């Protein structure tokens, strides 16, 4: 990653004598960039510093910026605080996340291939319906789904959160897959078809290996969405031992709203995987946005 060093070098490069107008402009751009970066990063930094303060230090005004002593114990103490079951909630969150990722990848690959490479009557109608469903407010289906899951006894299990992923895996992901598959040269496929390979095998042996970037992109988006999801678990999970991390944090807030350092520590723990995923997949995510071809 490029760091402040490069910013510094950029400032040194300015040639004040020859192009004063241009130099002022760049300086001004940096000024705005630096101030806005501070505004965006400061809250996150505040979360980290608060998570390392003592309970007493949090309740002073004006607040101190750096903690007097770095209280790392907040993390293990918050993790095992009273009736909190963070380990269990982490396992639940991971279980749901990976189940949804598996379902999403399998079904988005199949559907994306069907929409991109096979022509059959009714295909475009279904594809338009898939796209339209992106814009549907989820509350319209929420209540019958709740009633339905209630009837089949799925409430307070992970099934309402995971099973739908195996049926389509999200309209946007199908769309991404289709766009990508459409770009793969047809000759590859025709040769294999003439050789008598069936389509599932073609998909698995030709398309999937070529599609690593889009598969990675969808994995990242899905991981992020499920890890962060709050509404789904709130509606469908009720008993404490089935909570996810997101529900756990609100539960903690409801019981011990004054335990600010613990709360910040737990919130920050929930952010860490996202930061890793982001640095790991920054390029992929931006490419995913471009791939979706929003411009046209």
């Amino acid at each position, binding site marked *: 990653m490029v760091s*402040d060093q490069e910013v510094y070098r950029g400032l040194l490069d300015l040639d004040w004598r020859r192009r004063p107008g241009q130099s002022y402009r760049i300086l001004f751009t940096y000024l705005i960039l630096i101030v806005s970066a501070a505004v965006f990063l400061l809250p996150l930094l505040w979360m980290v510093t608060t998570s390392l303060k003592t309970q007493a230090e949090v309740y002073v*005004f004006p607040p101190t910026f750096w903690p007097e002593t770095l209280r790392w114990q907040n993390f293990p103490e918050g993790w095992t605080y009273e009736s909190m079951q963070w380990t269990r909630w982490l396992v639940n969150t991971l279980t749901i996340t990976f189940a949804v990722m598996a379902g999403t990848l399998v079904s988005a690959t199949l559907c994306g291939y069907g929409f991109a490479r*096979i022509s059959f009557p009714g295909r475009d109608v279904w594809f338009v*319906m*898939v796209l339209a469903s992106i814009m549907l407010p989820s509350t319209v289906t929420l209540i019958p789904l709740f009633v339905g899951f209630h009837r089949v006894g799925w409430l307070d299990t992970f099934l309402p959160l995971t099973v*739908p992923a195996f049926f389509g895996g999200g309209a946007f992901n199908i769309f991404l897959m289709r766009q990508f598959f459409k770009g793969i040269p047809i000759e590859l496929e025709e040769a294999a078809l003439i050789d008598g390979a069936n389509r599932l095998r073609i998909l698995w042996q030709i398309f999937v290996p070529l599609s690593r970037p889009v598969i990675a992109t969808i994995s990242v988006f899905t991981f992020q969405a499920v890890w962060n999801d709050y509404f789904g678990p709130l509606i469908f999970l009720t008993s404490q031992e089935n909570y996810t991390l997101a529900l756990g944090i609100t539960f903690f807030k409801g019981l011990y709203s004054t335990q600010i350092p613990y709360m910040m520590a737990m919130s920050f723990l929930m952010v860490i995987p996202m930061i890793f995923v*982001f640095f790991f997949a920054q390029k992929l995510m931006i490419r995913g946005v471009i791939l979706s071809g929003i411009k046209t």
Partner: protein
Amino acid sequence: MNSRMRDTVQGYLFISPVVLGLLIFTIGPMLTSFYMSFTKFPLLRAPEWIGLRNYIVMFTSDRNFWQACKVTLIYAATSVPLGLVGAFILAILLNQRVKGIAFFRTSFYMPAIVPAIASLILWGWLMNRDYGLINAVLVRLGFQKFSFFAEPETALASMVMMSLWGVGAGMIIYLAGLQGIPESLYEAGKLDGANEAQLFWNITIPMMTPTIFFNLVMGLIAASQTFMNAFVLTSGGPLKSTYFYNLMLYERAFNWTQMGMASAMAWFLLFVVLILTLLVFRSSALWVFYEAEVR
């Protein structure tokens, strides 16, 4: 079996997950919820047909309903345009040719990856009246302490402010759009003697309208469904000043088990979102520029 027949069968087999998914998890529930909206349905007993009564009660005798509409509308009408402009300005800044852009891009985008629940907890604390960082800064600058979520006059505005922290997501989309504008357009403009402002208004803005349009539609749909802010931070208060539409719907369905009424609310929301989206799409002919039309 001829090849056309085979393609049809195979095609439907491949897309069968999403076909089934749409039928089971989208279209079926949609129709059911439409039916439910005409019933009294307390979950444990069978739905009882009551005609339009849910809608009549909703529109005429439930004062909270119009309050919820008002709150959601004000929030959408302020946070969406502010977010669009903020994200656009950041993207323009990032599109300058200065060094260290990757660092700034990461900084602006970072808040957008923070789980919503974590950022709500954080902002609740930052905006705390007595011990919050923002009030510390305000006091330092010589202002009075601000109540943020604690007063009906300021609670909703505070939520709009908070939402701006997450503009990084929209910004990335703009950035992709900006980088897709062919350099040749600017060169041609410069040859014709256009200055920077003219290049911006006559090339950048028109070329970006499809992206702005996309962000506008998605932003409106998301804003109309705001829920967590109110549920986690204010429970709709103080004095219903942050009583969002979806919070009311949630209360009707899951606190009071009025499934019929909640379904009616969901359908009214769908109707409004549909009308809004249609209006935006209609208006797009006036202001959205598609290259293909010119070629």
